[in-house]
């Protein structure tokens, strides 16, 4: 690998961009010494607990906390009247009470919080709070919420957002038409580190909060509003984050712990248990989708018409943006001349839904990829051939009118997938390779193999005109006779390895091996959210920009010291060099006592809002693509599925850290497998029936097959290093590929995910 430095090409720096150095937090994590948000401890700290509504929809008629307050060891019991500022919060609309006041809108909504000297004391006191409710009829169907005669759950009605997309003819004629109604169940992020944090009062009316989150500054804004404080009084520091996947974009315990800390004057720790975690964060929107695809006889798409309903549950969260994605990406990675899509996000009394990896693109992909397979059948084409005939590419115009202006190698992804070796037929000798495994449910009888393909598309970074930026500070000085760099940002490391990548960027740009990533906190400007596959692009871009400013200042400092011109100098592996004379001096000698300290606020190119009537607009920054081939063995008598292989080809523009890129593809594919065959939060009348890892299943090591992975690096000229966001695309195509394989094995229509045994037998 080479990189261009000051107009010259130099050898790649060790452990720089394109290599896979060890994570800086890896050793602490394997030793059990990395401090996650639930590991924090403070002398004299109290434990918080949250009383939640047992009803999905009810009016609160009375709250009596006297018995709870009287429990020895209890320091505070707080209800909505104790919220000093705005008793509302939310990512896009402040519509969610910090603590319920008059109406509860979902089962699990916080009503009161308790602080006590032991977690068990807090739990017991919480159960002594008497709340009386008048139960109301819950609204639990998203289509009813849009079109039906049901209660309005919020002022202005139950539609959070309706996004239409119109392109070309609205009543086109096609030779072949296929239709389908598809459903996606409610998926949970199921990050392993529970919602947790520690709030420490500062003794002057402010609070320091140590918390696991995806976006410190948007948390801070909402906390400040609820507490009636200034941003200077509410300081957040990122504690160790045990996974996120979208589920930490919304607040959970942040305001509650801060409130309790301010009322009691003591540090307060809150840690949800697994059941509470299911109530404590938003989930992936369940979807109902009606699709019609029309094509010529030879399988070229003429039109796509779709209606997509996304159930946002009780509060808006990020439903508006999820709707935008599902609508704009609703036809998938295909060139479609005539499009009519309507997507609605709704309020209901189901659990609130918001961000989860894939964010609207996952739901749509199950719909459009199921349709593409149906269309292939109707046209007598193979699943890959129909996709190739309609594959978008660089220069394709999206249904929004936006021209795709960097690589979109959809056909190439499919070609490469087809070129990968298929797994050997299953052995009936080893139970562990069969559906049902060591449960000994089959020795091969009734087992049928199937193969399926799918491709997905995802927008990278924040879209629709959002002012999306990240802030980075880079400081270079000599420390102990060595050049050393510190990097400060507020970007949430949630496990993905951003801390490694930021070190690599510094090494590449400044040739300095020793790079310290400072704790992420709100003492610096916002880095935006760790979501939308955007942090390598955005905070990577910001750190690179700050490093380039440092390099510029350093070179002019060096020019003076070395009596050269800045233009003739460049950095080469920790040394100053000139074109004519080669190495001139060690960086550390040139540095001397000097210090270079630059802070940059960095933005991606602007995007546009969608026209509210037509959905026209250059709404997205970048598109990412992945494709999967799944091979499954299905026990057709019992409906058990074993995914035998799950191969993936993804274009990542530039693999800043190849090991981390592959890790994202493997992990993202596993979450897509979960949605395909096991993962669903099951609700009944708005009540979650399976809030535990006993009943909400995520893939184990037995469920995940080996993967062949092919990573393409087709640089995007608009992005830092040409990179393309990696995290989300593999979650999108994994699910429909597996379902397609099950269809191929069984001949069943399979209109809903997750696919359950009774859908097969």
């Amino acid at each position, binding site marked *: 690998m080479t990189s261009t430095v000051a107009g010259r090409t130099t050898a790649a720096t060790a452990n720089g961009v394109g290599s896979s150095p060890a994570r800086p937090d890896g050793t602490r994590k*394997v*030793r*059990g010494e990395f401090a996650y948000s639930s590991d924090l*401890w403070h002398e004299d700290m109290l434990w918080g607990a949250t009383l939640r509504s047992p009803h999905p929809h009810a009016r609160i008629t009375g709250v009596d906390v006297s018995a709870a307050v009287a429990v020895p060891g209890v320091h505070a019991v707080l209800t909505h009247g104790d919220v000093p500022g705005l008793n509302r919060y939310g990512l896009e609309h402040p519509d969610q009470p910090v603590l319920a006041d008059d109406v509860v809108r979902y089962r699990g909504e916080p009503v009161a919080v308790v602080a006590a000297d032991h977690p068990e004391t807090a739990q017991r006191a919480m159960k002594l709070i008497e709340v009386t409710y008048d139960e109301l009829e819950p609204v639990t169907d998203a289509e009813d919420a849009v079109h039906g005669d049901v209660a309005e759950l919020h002022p202005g009605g139950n539609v959070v957002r309706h996004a239409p997309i119109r392109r070309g003819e609205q009543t086109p004629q096609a030779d072949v038409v296929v239709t389908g109604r598809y459903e996606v169940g409610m998926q949970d992020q199921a990050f392993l580190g529970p919602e947790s944090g520690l709030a420490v009062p500062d003794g002057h009316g402010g609070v320091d909060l140590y918390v696991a989150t995806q976006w410190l500054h948007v948390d801070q804004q909402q906390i400040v509003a609820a507490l009636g404080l200034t941003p200077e009084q509410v300081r957040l520091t990122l504690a160790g984050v045990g996974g996120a996947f979208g589920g930490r974009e919304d607040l959970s315990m942040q305001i509650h712990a801060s409130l309790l800390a301010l009322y009691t004057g003591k540090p307060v720790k809150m840690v949800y248990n697994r059941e509470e975690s299911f109530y404590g964060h938003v989930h992936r929107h369940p979807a109902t989708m009606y699709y019609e695809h029309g094509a010529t006889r030879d399988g070229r798409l003429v039109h796509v018409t779709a209606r997509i309903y996304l159930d946002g549950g009780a509060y808006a969260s990020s439903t508006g943006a999820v709707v935008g994605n599902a609508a704009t990406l609703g036809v998938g990675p295909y060139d479609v001349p005539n499009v009519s899509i309507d997507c609605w996000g709704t309020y209901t009394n189901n659990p609130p839904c918001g961000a989860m990896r894939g964010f609207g693109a996952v739901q749509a992909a199950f719909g459009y990829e199921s349709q593409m397979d149906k269309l292939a059948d109707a046209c007598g084409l193979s699943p890959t051939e129909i996709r190739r005939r309609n594959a978008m590419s660089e220069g394709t115009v999206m249904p929004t009118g936006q021209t795709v202006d960097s690589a979109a190698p959809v056909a190439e992804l499919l070609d490469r997938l087809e070129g990968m070796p298929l797994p050997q037929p299953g052995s009936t000798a080893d139970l562990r390779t069969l559906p049902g495994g060591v449960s000994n449910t089959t020795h091969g009888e009734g087992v049928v193999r199937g193969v399926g393909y799918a491709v997905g598309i995802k927008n990278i970074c924040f879209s629709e005109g959002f002012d999306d930026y990240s802030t980075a500070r880079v400081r270079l000085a000599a420390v102990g006779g060595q050049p050393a760099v510190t990097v400060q940002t507020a970007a949430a490391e949630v496990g993905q390895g951003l801390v490694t990548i930021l070190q690599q960027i510094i090494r590449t740009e400044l040739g300095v091996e020793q790079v310290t990533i400072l704790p992420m906190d709100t003492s610096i400007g916002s880095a935006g959210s760790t979501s939308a596959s955007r942090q390598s692009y955005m905070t990577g871009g910001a750190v690179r920009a700050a490093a380039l400013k440092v390099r510029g200042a350093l070179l002019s400092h060096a020019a003076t010291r070395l009596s050269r011109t800045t233009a003739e100098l460049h950095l080469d592996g920790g040394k100053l060099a000139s074109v004519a004379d080669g190495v001139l001096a060690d960086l550390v000698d040139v540095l001397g006592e000097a210090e270079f300290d630059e802070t940059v606020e960095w933005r991606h190119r602007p995007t546009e809002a969608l026209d509210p009537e037509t959905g026209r607009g250059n709404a997205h920054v970048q598109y990412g693509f992945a494709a999967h081939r799944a091979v499954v063995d299905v026990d057709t008598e019992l409906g058990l599925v074993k995914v035998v292989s799950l191969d993936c080809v993804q274009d990542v523009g530039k693999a800043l850290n190849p090991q981390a890129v592959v890790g994202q593809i493997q992990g993202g594919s*596993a979450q897509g497998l979960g949605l395909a065959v096991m993962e669903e939060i099951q609700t009944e009348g708005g009540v979650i029936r399976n809030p535990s890892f006993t009943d909400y299943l995520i893939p*184990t090591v037995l469920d995940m097959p080996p993967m062949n992975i092919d990573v393409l690096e087709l640089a995007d000229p608009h992005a830092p290093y040409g990179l393309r966001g990696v995290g989300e695309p593999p979650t999108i195509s994994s699910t429909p590929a597996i379902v397609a394989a099950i269809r191929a094995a069984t001949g069943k229509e399979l209109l809903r995910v997750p696919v359950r045994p009774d859908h097969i037998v």
Partner: protein
Amino acid sequence: MRVNLTVNGERRRADDVWEGESLLYVLRERLGLPGSKNACEQGECGSCTVYLDDVPACACLVAAGQAEGREVRTVEGLADGDALDPVQQSFVDAGAVQCGFCTPGLVVAAHDLLRREPDPSDEEIREALAGNLCRCTGYEKILDAVHSAAGAR
């Protein structure tokens, strides 16, 4: 109540333990050993896996009182000073650590597997680690790490 136990070779005592507390709570909140994790606290995820008298167990399912007089080895007790155990080193090198919340439990479970089976097959690793959930990695690099640790031992 008071609980006396040996943790990572050291005799430890916890006072004022409420009878309902788990071994996991005592380790994390009373003995300053938060390495064992609290992902589900119901025995489903394996993130709190420790050796209890040399047998791997979910510390969340062990009542504190049941640990009286027994020997516990946690993830904090695997490394030899600064030298990581081969399993730990392999997890770092293979990229088997992302968020890392499952890691302590998986490291202990893999450590136990390699004591019993020095050169396990993929199928044996999968069966042995089936009680440990990971949400980030899709497990592929965990398999790589266990194979690599087997080679290093």
